[in-house]
């Protein structure tokens, strides 16, 4: 159990206009050539002829057809005709102004880190970072960029982190939850070393270049399954970071799990603790019960919100994880968007609401320094 907070709460959607920090906003490319200004002629030609060739079955789209065009809210299509998330003025009006967003962290999902050709992936992630500055953060100080990296090319990833670390427009390093190997393995450690050295947190967003099936027992037929089991990749990354000793080795590392749910976090920690107690000699570098690393180093974004059948059980989930570890996220402009006033179906005190909607993110991203 964590913080004991006053609970004079009333659920009132029109209550105080609390400033909100949103740690999951998806900017999108205006068209399929939007990254070209930031890519060399060679890569422009390469992409035009061969595409980005990730581990998927179609030439121009993901394996599992989504359920809405561009995975977007129907009302998120701007009048300008650009795709949802590509029109800054519309995003400002529909999202940042409307919800009183003080800061919003961009999480680009534009298939830059998924090419099997790692040189291409590194070039594309570099281009995405340039594009975030040019199209969004340089024009709108409320938006913060993510340092997107191609983790499979560790050297290139570290170079990109070094390049961006001093730029306060970037709030974090962004990694996919579905790396080619479990993310705790040693090949990825230089990324963690660079992040810790620069005091940059890491945001794991669901998705990534994995070649493996979405489940340990093969390929689902349907999006209704694939969408759900994406959260298992978060569980795998959390367990991997703990059991490979990443948090033991990089104790100041802060990671946030974005769009991966969080009802699983406490049960996973209990399960890890139970079996670690018997088999800790297999992982001698894991000095403390796994739950302690989870509590110390891992944060969770709230969208897509957990919806217990008894809404009050959400409070138990927050109690188990820690109220100081939850960060509000909207997933704008995607179809499963969470409204900050409506997504939490429990009564929260003003202090609790302020933690989740604002203060925890200030501490996690150290926005006092980088803002």
């Amino acid at each position: 159990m964590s913080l004991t907070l006053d609970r004079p709460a009333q659920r009132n959607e029109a209550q105080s206009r609390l400033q909100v920090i949103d740690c999951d906003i998806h900017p999108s490319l205006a068209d399929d050539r939007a990254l070209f200004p930031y890519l060399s002629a060679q890569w422009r030609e390469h992409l035009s002829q061969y595409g980005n060739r990730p581990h998927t079955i179609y030439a121009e789209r993901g394996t599992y057809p989504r359920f809405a065009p561009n995975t977007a809210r129907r009302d998120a299509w701007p009048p300008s005709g650009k795709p949802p998330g590509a029109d800054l003025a519309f995003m400002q009006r529909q999202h940042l102004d409307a919800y009183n967003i003080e800061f919003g962290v961009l999480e680009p999902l534009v298939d830059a880190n998924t090419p099997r050709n790692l040189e291409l992936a590194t070039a594309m992630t570099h281009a995405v970072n340039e594009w975030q500055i040019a199209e969004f953060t340089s024009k709108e100080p409320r938006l913060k960029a993510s340092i997107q990296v191609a983790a499979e090319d560790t050297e290139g990833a570290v170079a990109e982190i070094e390049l961006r670390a001093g730029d306060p427009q970037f709030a974090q390093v962004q990694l996919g939850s579905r790396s080619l190997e479990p993310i705790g393995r040693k090949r990825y450690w230089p990324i963690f070393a660079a992040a810790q050295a620069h005091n940059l947190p890491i945001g794991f967003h669901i998705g990534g270049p994995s070649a493996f099936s979405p489940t340990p027992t093969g390929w689902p037929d349907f999006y209704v399954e694939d969408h759900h089991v994406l959260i298992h990749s978060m569980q795998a990354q959390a367990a991997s970071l703990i059991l490979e000793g990443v948090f033991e080795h990089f104790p100041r590392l802060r990671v946030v799990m974005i769009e991966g749910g969080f009802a699983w976090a406490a049960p996973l920690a209990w399960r890890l603790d139970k079996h670690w107690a018997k088999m800790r000699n297999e992982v001698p570098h894991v000095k403390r019960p796994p739950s302690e690393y989870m509590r110390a180093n891992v944060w969770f974004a709230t969208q897509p919100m957990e919806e217990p059948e008894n809404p009050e059980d959400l409070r138990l989930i927050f109690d188990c994880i820690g109220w100081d570890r939850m960060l509000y996220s909207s997933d704008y402009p995607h179809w499963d968007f969470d409204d900050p006033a409506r997504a939490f179906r429990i009564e929260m005190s003003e202090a609790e609401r302020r933690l989740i909607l604002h203060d925890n993110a200030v501490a996690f991203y150290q926005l006092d320094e980088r803002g």
Partner: protein
Amino acid sequence: MSIPVRGAIDCDIHPAVPGIKTLLPYMDEFWQETFIARGQDGFVMGSYPPNAPISCRPDWKPPAGLPGSDFGQLQSQALDSFQARFAICNCLYGGLIAVSETMAAAMCGAVNDWIAAEWLDRDPRLRASILIPAQSPELAVEEIERLAADRRFVQILMPAALEMMLGKRYYWPIYAAAERHGLPIGLHAGSMYRHAPTSTGWPSHFLQDYVSNTQAFESQLLSLIAQGVFSKFPALKVVLIESGVTWLPGLIWRAVKTWRGVRAEVPWVKQSPAEQIREHVRLTVQPIDGPKDAGVLERIIEQIGSDDMLLFSTDYPHWQFENEAALPDGIPRRLIEKIMVENPLATYSRLKENVQ
């Protein structure tokens, strides 16, 4: 908590096949010759390294041989200690996961005949699961049909992770046979390792492999639901064995939420995933993966939203608890009799029959 109820029904114990020699008398000449001439033995499943701490509780180690291979020891440690009325033998052996369908069938068939002759015949408290080569549903159904008349077989056993997701039509003949004979499908923790244990690949450690079993169980439930298996086979029961328990409420909530959002993709799924799970799915209680605070565990068990789902198990000889504390603290009192006796009897209807 030690055992407060006499006549408990232990839904998961593990006799071990000492080695391939034990099974040869239950094989035809071709397979006898094959295993002998090729010098093949050592078909313990990779999901359970025999010397890993979890594979045997320290005080249950036999004087020699594999954990669970000593009949007398199993009688006293698993049956007498917990005053069991029945215990269901789930023999984890390589036939469940062999890549050759025919070799898998030979090994599963031999294990089933060996269990019947050398375990079930020697203690009336023992019941068993039919091992099937699910790699080939055709051969699996043959095996079910061969043994279904022996009412001491109360379940069909498969590992949690196979080559494909279990909702797919490929496997439906197995469910038809299960339903026909009143046999639940038992999915036991463990994998054929045809796919990485996680969607981000192969972890370095057994500990993560083992913990990740929940992801296979969850995925299989989602597949069975999305493909409409429970509406096609309304009497089918699926028992998750050695699955852990505390992940279940979160799975239910997420499954319902996702289904509400995109159910138009699977219009044949008319019943909420929560209702389907509560009606068709059962879980053995060990290893319970709960917090230190028994009050929190009690709340999680209430979140499951059904008193019918949990089944008593010791997971003998696996090391999941100490002494007689097979029931974790935090189980609501009203559920104890249910978990230990009533739910197993309702799940395994054959246990209610008088068997000579």
